[in-house]
């Protein structure tokens, strides 16, 4: 009996111990999660309470000192570069390990390993685009051409891994505990992969949509609705810039036969709308102090843990501070004692699709000119949590991978297209940042940029020597007019890219006479640039507001530049609203609600400040009107893009009774006024609903800016309803989910003065007081002091750690 009862209790106890160690469906293992000594409770402890005076970091040649300021920004002092990047890896992992690993898992198409079968399609998509393939090419390229950087990449990886190897359960980031997995080792490959992931985030193409539009509208109407160079464009490189080079010849084939199917398939996922950035520099001639001032604010999806992590990286040879990307070496947007630089996305169509005609079902060969060319097969093994691995065969042509085929995306018609994208070619973007970090002047900056392929960026530059510059850098294919705008026939060698624009012929400018350089994702150059430049997503509003302000400003101070980054002027509204009010006429003056709204709109100063009510009204009215105008286009079963807001407003002003406004399938002849009125009625209905359900319709309350955790389901780790102004197309580009992910202003005087802020915090741990502590300041347009620190500076030190 005693044996029995003991054995029963023992069995029960063991069963209990095992039960609480395993997950039940989505519920993570309970005991490891709730154990106060190892579980999530431990993640309540902030970094300052865990401060260590000394930490072991092997393979250093000398000790490394890490000084944290009161915002938990680490300042790393090392004696050489290998030590510096080893320490950067270690310290970044200490604060951001889960995020850096999660992002590279996403980039590698390995999310299924973490969350199970529901991510298989996502992972297949990622892999079929060839991101990991591109990263492998990048690795080979760096190993062969730049062994020095390769060693630094390995030092960084080793630093991350030394952190992982000593990581206790208690300090394991809480996301691992909830999702029930553990970090694996970092590698140089993952750092490269992260940079490829950035390319994926920032580069899109609309070849599918344009192919459909060409079919639906015909060439003439297409050029009218989607003008490549509408009136009033203000390019990045100042108009009238002289191009002092002899362009390479590009030959346009005599006859171009485009594949002519209308394609009812979902396009490749695109960079999200609202992704963009501002950067500019003003020369000493326009500033109060006589020193150049540089500003940069990249707009990306607003996430926690923040995409950016601030650091100072110092060796006896150089000292740089700014925003780093966890997982990549060095500072990405920042300044040293000589120069400052910043980036905005230089969108340009560098991704093209070629129709592939396979010889037979085996897909071992495809037609090219009058021959058959061999394909290669790449087998992607996707590991799946709780299931056996999924094997996916991707066919590679000399153009690149065939993304959609008979095994992937069942809805599509029987056509195979290969993706040609410069991300698949070996390149070394990391080198650009390593060189920029220690650059001393404009020549160094140019040398650094020569290594940069993708995602193409507008690099702004200012130096203590007084130079300001802008260069649009990427590896841009040489294209004849119209090439790559539509799907092309892969069997026709005449459709091939004819090489690349040489680096020294990429558009750039140094010290233009207007006294400033600026970019905000608009057209790169005026029409005199001798190469074909096309993209669907050029922006029309931020750049014009920015340039008009910079032109009229003089005696500029750092505060002025901060104010400009936070500028809420809604240029699109300022241009569209008067026309809309005109077209609306006086029909609605007897409706009480309409009267109230119209009064608000009429007295509006066009600033989208958080407490303003008019921006909400305009935003709704515009959106309704816009979708009315283009509803026949968007109602098409085949995916298309709609004409830009800018072009639409031009039509409303220039030809309000024009044919573009007529809906073909109605007997009446519609004009702009009809759509504006319909939009107004719909806006009234929406507002009525909003006022009943939500009440207040002030702008911040309406747009509900949210800084979302990387796992959207972890809602309580997000920060919702941040009270702040701005919006898409506004210099302060803070919309619901996108906005200034980093703001920096640097004045390059004898002493370099810098200010920065990002919507997040240095810690990646949702339990830490440093997780989201910058958000309030960011929302108010405030900045942190980002001046460089010296080792012996005493004030404002949170704690310091010696790595040895």
């Amino acid at each position: 009996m005693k044996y029995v009862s003991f054995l029963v209790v023992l069995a029960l106890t063991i069963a209990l111990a095992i039960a609480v160690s395993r997950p039940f469906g989505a519920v993570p293992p309970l005991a490891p999660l709730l154990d106060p000594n190892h579980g999530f409770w431990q993640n309540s402890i902030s970094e300052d309470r865990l401060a260590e005076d000394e930490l072991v970091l092997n393979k250093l040649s000398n000790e490394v000192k890490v000084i944290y300021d009161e915002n938990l920004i680490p300042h790393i002092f090392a004696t050489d570069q290998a030590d510096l990047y080893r320490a950067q890896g270690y310290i970044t992992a200490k604060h951001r390990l889960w995020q850096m690993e999660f992002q590279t898992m996403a980039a590698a198409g390995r999310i299924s390993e973490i969350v199970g079968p529901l991510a298989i399609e996502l992972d297949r998509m990622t892999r079929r685009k060839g991101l990991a393939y591109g990263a492998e090419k990048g690795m080979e390229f760096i190993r062969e051409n730049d062994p020095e950087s390769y060693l630094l990449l390995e030092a960084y990886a080793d630093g991350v891994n030394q952190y992982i190897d000593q990581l206790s359960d208690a300090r394991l980031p809480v996301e691992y505990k909830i999702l029930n997995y553990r970090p694996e080792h970092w590698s140089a490959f993952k750092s490269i992969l992260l940079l490829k992931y950035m390319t994926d985030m920032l580069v899109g193409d609309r070849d599918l949509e344009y192919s459909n539009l060409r079919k639906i509208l015909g060439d003439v109407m297409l050029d009218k609705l989607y003008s490549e160079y509408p009136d009033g464009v203000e390019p990045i490189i100042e108009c009238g810039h002289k191009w002092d080079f002899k362009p390479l010849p590009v030959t346009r084939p005599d006859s171009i036969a485009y594949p002519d199917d209308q394609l009812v398939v979902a396009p490749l996922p695109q960079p999200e709308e609202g992704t963009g950035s501002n950067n500019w520099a003003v020369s000493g001639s326009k500033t109060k102090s006589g020193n150049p001032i540089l500003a940069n604010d990249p707009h990306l999806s607003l996430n926690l843990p923040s995409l950016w992590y601030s650091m100072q990286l110092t060796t006896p040879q150089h000292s740089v501070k700014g925003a780093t990307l966890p997982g990549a070496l060095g500072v990405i947007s920042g300044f040293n004692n000589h120069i400052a630089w910043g980036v905005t996305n230089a969108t340009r169509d560098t991704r093209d699709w070629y129709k592939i005609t396979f010889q037979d079902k085996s897909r071992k060969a495809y037609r090219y000119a009058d021959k058959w060319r061999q394909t290669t097969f790449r087998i992607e093994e996707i590991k799946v949590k709780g299931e056996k691995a999924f094997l996916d065969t991707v066919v590679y042509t000399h153009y690149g991978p065939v993304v959609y085929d008979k095994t992937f995306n069942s809805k599509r018609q029987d056509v195979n297209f290969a993706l040609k994208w410069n991300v698949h070619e070996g390149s070394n973007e990391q080198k650009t940042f390593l060189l920029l970090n220690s650059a001393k002047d404009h020549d160094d900056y140019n040398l650094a940029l020569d290594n940069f392929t993708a995602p193409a960026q507008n690099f702004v530059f200012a130096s203590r020597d007084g130079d300001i510059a802008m260069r649009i850098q990427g590896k841009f294919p040489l294209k004849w007019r119209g090439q790559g705008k539509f799907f092309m026939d892969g069997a026709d060698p005449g459709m091939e890219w004819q090489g690349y624009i040489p680096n020294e012929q990429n558009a750039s400018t140094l010290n233009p006479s207007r006294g400033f350089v600026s970019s905000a994702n608009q057209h790169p150059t005026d029409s005199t640039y001798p190469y074909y430049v096309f993209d669907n997503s050029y922006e029309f509003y931020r750049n014009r507001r920015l340039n008009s302000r910079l032109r009229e400003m003089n005696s500029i101070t750092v505060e002025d530049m901060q104010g400009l980054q936070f500028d809420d002027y809604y240029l699109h509204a300022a241009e569209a609203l008067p026309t809309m009010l005109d077209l609306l006429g006086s029909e609605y003056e007897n409706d009480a609600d309409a009267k109230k709204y119209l009064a608000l709109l009429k007295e509006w100063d066009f600033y989208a400040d958080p407490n303003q009510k008019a921006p909400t009204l305009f935003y709704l009215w515009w959106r309704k009107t816009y979708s009315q105008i283009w509803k026949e286009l968007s109602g098409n079963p085949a995916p298309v893009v709609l004409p830009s807001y800018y072009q639409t407003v031009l039509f409303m002003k220039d030809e309000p009774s024009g044919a573009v406004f007529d809906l073909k399938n109605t007997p009446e002849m519609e004009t702009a006024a009809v759509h504006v009125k319909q939009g107004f009625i719909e806006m009234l209905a929406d507002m009525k609903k909003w006022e009943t359900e939500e009440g207040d319709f002030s702008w911040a309350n309406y747009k509900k800016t949210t800084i979302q955790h990387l796992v959207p389901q972890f809602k309580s780790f997000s920060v919702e309803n941040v009270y702040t102004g701005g919006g898409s197309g506004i210099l302060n580009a803070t919309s619901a989910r996108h906005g200034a992910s980093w703001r920096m202003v640097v004045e390059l005087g004898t002493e370099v003065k810098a200010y920065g802020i990002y919507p997040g915090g240095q810690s990646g741990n949702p339990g830490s007081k440093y997780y989201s502590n910058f958000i309030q300041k960011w929302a108010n347009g405030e900045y942190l002091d980002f001046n460089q620190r010296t080792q012996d500076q005493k004030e404002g030190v949170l704690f310091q750690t010696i790595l040895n």
Partner: protein
Amino acid sequence: MKFILLTVLTALLVLIVNPFLPYWAVMILLAILAAAVGNKAGGAFFAGGLGMGLAWMGQSVYISSVTGSQLPEKMSELMGLGDEITLFAITGVLGFFLGAFSALAGSLFRKLLKRKPDNIYGR
């Protein structure tokens, strides 16, 4: 007396050893402890349970009050539990059952060892 002794010793064991060992190792040590102290089955169950349950709940309350972190709140929301009080309770209850069964197993094990002298001198 033995009841209070085992409760206190269990709590101390958890506080001292748990930071370095996972919960299942603590369970084994707790079983040994209960066998050594020698409570009856029912006493061991509740003493072990209270000891570990209170220790876990106490630790979680302590960490949360010292750090002032909002993580417990966020975790409760994430787990759909309402407020963080529930999370303290669940942590305590889980600790209770882990401690209770371990101590019970230890106590019953001691009984097994005691059997031999019983057979020699008793019937």
